[in-house]
C-alpha cells in the first residue's frame, strides 16, 4: 500500500446503512450457527410433524394440527427471541464483540435495533416454513391476521427483554445452560404441545401467566377458535415486555 493510504478520513456510515449492515450480519451469524438452527427450525418443525401425525397427546376436538400449529409458532418465537438471542448475545458479550462495537460508529441503540430486526427476519422465515408444513398437515387457520401479528410482536418484545436480561447479567456459560433449560421447561409447561388443562388447577393458573402460555393460548384463540383480539393474553405479554425490557435496560452490562 502506498503513501497516503492511511491518511485519516474518518466518518460514520449513514445510520440506516449501519443498521442494515448490522442486521444482515447478525442474521447471517445466526443462520450459520448449527445449534441455533436446531433450536429455531428443526425442533419446532419436528414437534409439529411428529405430534400432528402420531396421536400421543390428547389435543381435544378437531385435527391435532389445528391445536399444535399455534403452539409451535409460539415456540418458534420463543426459540429465536429468547433462547437464541440470549445465547448469542451472552457469547458476544463474553468475547468482547459488544465491547468493540461499543467503540465503533454504531450507536448502542442502533445495535439493539439491529438485533431486534435480525430476530424479526428470522421469525418471518420460521413462520413461513412452519406455516407451509402445517398446511401440508391439513391445517385450517381462522381469525384475523392482524391479531396474530399483534401477538407475535408483543411476544417477541417480551421474550427479547427476558433474553437480553439474561445475556446481560449472567456469565455466557450460565446463560447457555439456563436459556436451554427454560426453553425445555416452557416447551412442556407453556401450552405449546401439552394443553394446559392437563395440569392441576392451581398449577395451571400460574402457568397461564407465563409469556409462552399467553402467546400460545392467544394464538390458539385466534387461529383455532377465531377470536377477534385476545385482550387477556395480549395484556400478559405486554406486562412481560415492559418488565423484561425495563429490567434489561437497567441491568444489562456490556462486558
Amino acid at each position, binding site marked *: 500500500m502506498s503513501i497516503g493510504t*492511511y491518511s485519516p*478520513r474518518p*466518518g460514520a456510515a449513514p445510520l440506516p446503512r449501519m443498521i442494515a449492515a448490522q442486521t444482515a*450480519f447478525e442474521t447471517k451469524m445466526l443462520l450459520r450457527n448449527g445449534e441455533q438452527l436446531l433450536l429455531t427450525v428443526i425442533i419446532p418443525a419436528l414437534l409439529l410433524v411428529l405430534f400432528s401425525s402420531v396421536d400421543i397427546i390428547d389435543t381435544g376436538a378437531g385435527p391435532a394440527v389445528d391445536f399444535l400449529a399455534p403452539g409451535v409458532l409460539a415456540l418458534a418465537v420463543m426459540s429465536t427471541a429468547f433462547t437464541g438471542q440470549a445465547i448469542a448475545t451472552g457469547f458476544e458479550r463474553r468475547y468482547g464483540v459488544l465491547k468493540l462495537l461499543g467503540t465503533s460508529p454504531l450507536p448502542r441503540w442502533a445495535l439493539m435495533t439491529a438485533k431486534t430486526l435480525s430476530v424479526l427476519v428470522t421469525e418471518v422465515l420460521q413462520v413461513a416454513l412452519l406455516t407451509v408444513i402445517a398446511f401440508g398437515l391439513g391445517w385450517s387457520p381462522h381469525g384475523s391476521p392482524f391479531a396474530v401479528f399483534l401477538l407475535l410482536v408483543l411476544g417477541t418484545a417480551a421474550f427479547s427483554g427476558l433474553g437480553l436480561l439474561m445475556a446481560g447479567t449472567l456469565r455466557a456459560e450460565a446463560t447457555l445452560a439456563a436459556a436451554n433449560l427454560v426453553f425445555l421447561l416452557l416447551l412442556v409447561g407453556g401450552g405449546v404441545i401439552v394443553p394446559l388443562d392437563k395440569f392441576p388447577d392451581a398449577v395451571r393458573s400460574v402457568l397461564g401467566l407465563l409469556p409462552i402460555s399467553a402467546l400460545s393460548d392467544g394464538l390458539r384463540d385466534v387461529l383455532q377458535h377465531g377470536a377477534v383480539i385476545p385482550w387477556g393474553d395480549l395484556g400478559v405479554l405486554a406486562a412481560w415486555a415492559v418488565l423484561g425490557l425495563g429490567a434489561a435496560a437497567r441491568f444489562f452490562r456490556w462486558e
Partner: protein
Amino acid sequence: MRSETVQVAVQIAGLVKRYGSKTAVDGLDLEVRPGVVTAVLGPNGAGKTTTIETCEGYRRPDAGTVRVLGLDPVADAAELRPRIGVMLQSGGVYSGARADEMLRHVAKLHAHPLDVDALIERLGLGSCGRTTYRRLSGGQQQRLALAMAVVGRPELVFLDEPTAGLDPQARRSTWELVRELRADGVGVVLTTHFMDEAEQLADDVAIIDNGRVIAQGSPEELCRGGAENTLRFTGRPGLDLASLLKALPVDTLAAELTPGTYRITGKVDPQLLATVTSWCAQHGVMPDGISVERHSLEDVFLELTGKDLRS
C-alpha cells in the same frame, strides 16, 4: 482536515478509576501529541488498559477529566467514535465470523473505509480463507483485530498490546504498519510489555505504575535522564583511581573489576569521557576498548517500577 486543528490528541488530568475497593487509576495525568506514536508501558495491573479504555469512552472516570481529540469520550461518544480506531487486548469478533467478512462488516460502519482487499493482503490475512475466527491462530486473530482498528481511516488508534503472542515476523510486520500509519498522519497510542517495541516505535513513552504516570518522554530522554550510565576500559593494572575520581564529578564511582579492567559509573556525558581520556593521557595509559554503555529502556523501566515480580 480536522486532525490539523487538534493540538493535543489525548489530554488526561487527574484521572481516577476504581473497581470496588481497588483503585486502578489514581490521579493520572497524560498528554499525547497528535500524529505521533505514544507507547504506554507499565507492569501488569498498573492501570494501562483502564486508562486506554477510558479514552475509548468505554469506562466513565470516577474523577478527573479525559479529552480525546478535544472531545469527552462519554458525552461526545457519537462524534468521537468514528474518529478513533480500537484494538482490544483480545476478542471483539463474532466467533462464527470469517476474517474477511468481519473486516468487511466493520468497514461498512464507516463512511470512507480503506480498501478491504488491500488491507487483507497487507496483513497477510488472505490465507485465512473460510476459517472462522475461533479457529484462527493467535497471530491471525491479532492481525485481524489490528485491521479492524484501522479500516475506518481514523485519526487516532488505540492498540492494546498489539504484538502480544506474535512470532517475530508478524511483530515486525505490525511495527511496519504502525510506522506507515504515523507516516500518513495517524496518531497511535499503544500499550506494550516489550521494551524493544517501545524503543523501536515510540516517539513518546509514558511509564505507568500504581495508576500514575511516573515518567514520560522520548525513549532517548528517558534513557539519558536519571539513569546512570557506565564507562568501561582496560589498561595497566593498579591505576590510582582516587586521583582519577578527583578529576570527575562528585557522585561518580570508579572500580577496578579485575586487574586491568575498569568501570566508571555516573552521569556519562562527553565532558566525562574527555576528562577520563585526558587523565589517561597524563598517566601514560592507553584506555583499550573504551566503551560507553547506554542504559536501555528496560533498565530505566525496571529502575522506576522495581524488579519485584508482581502478581
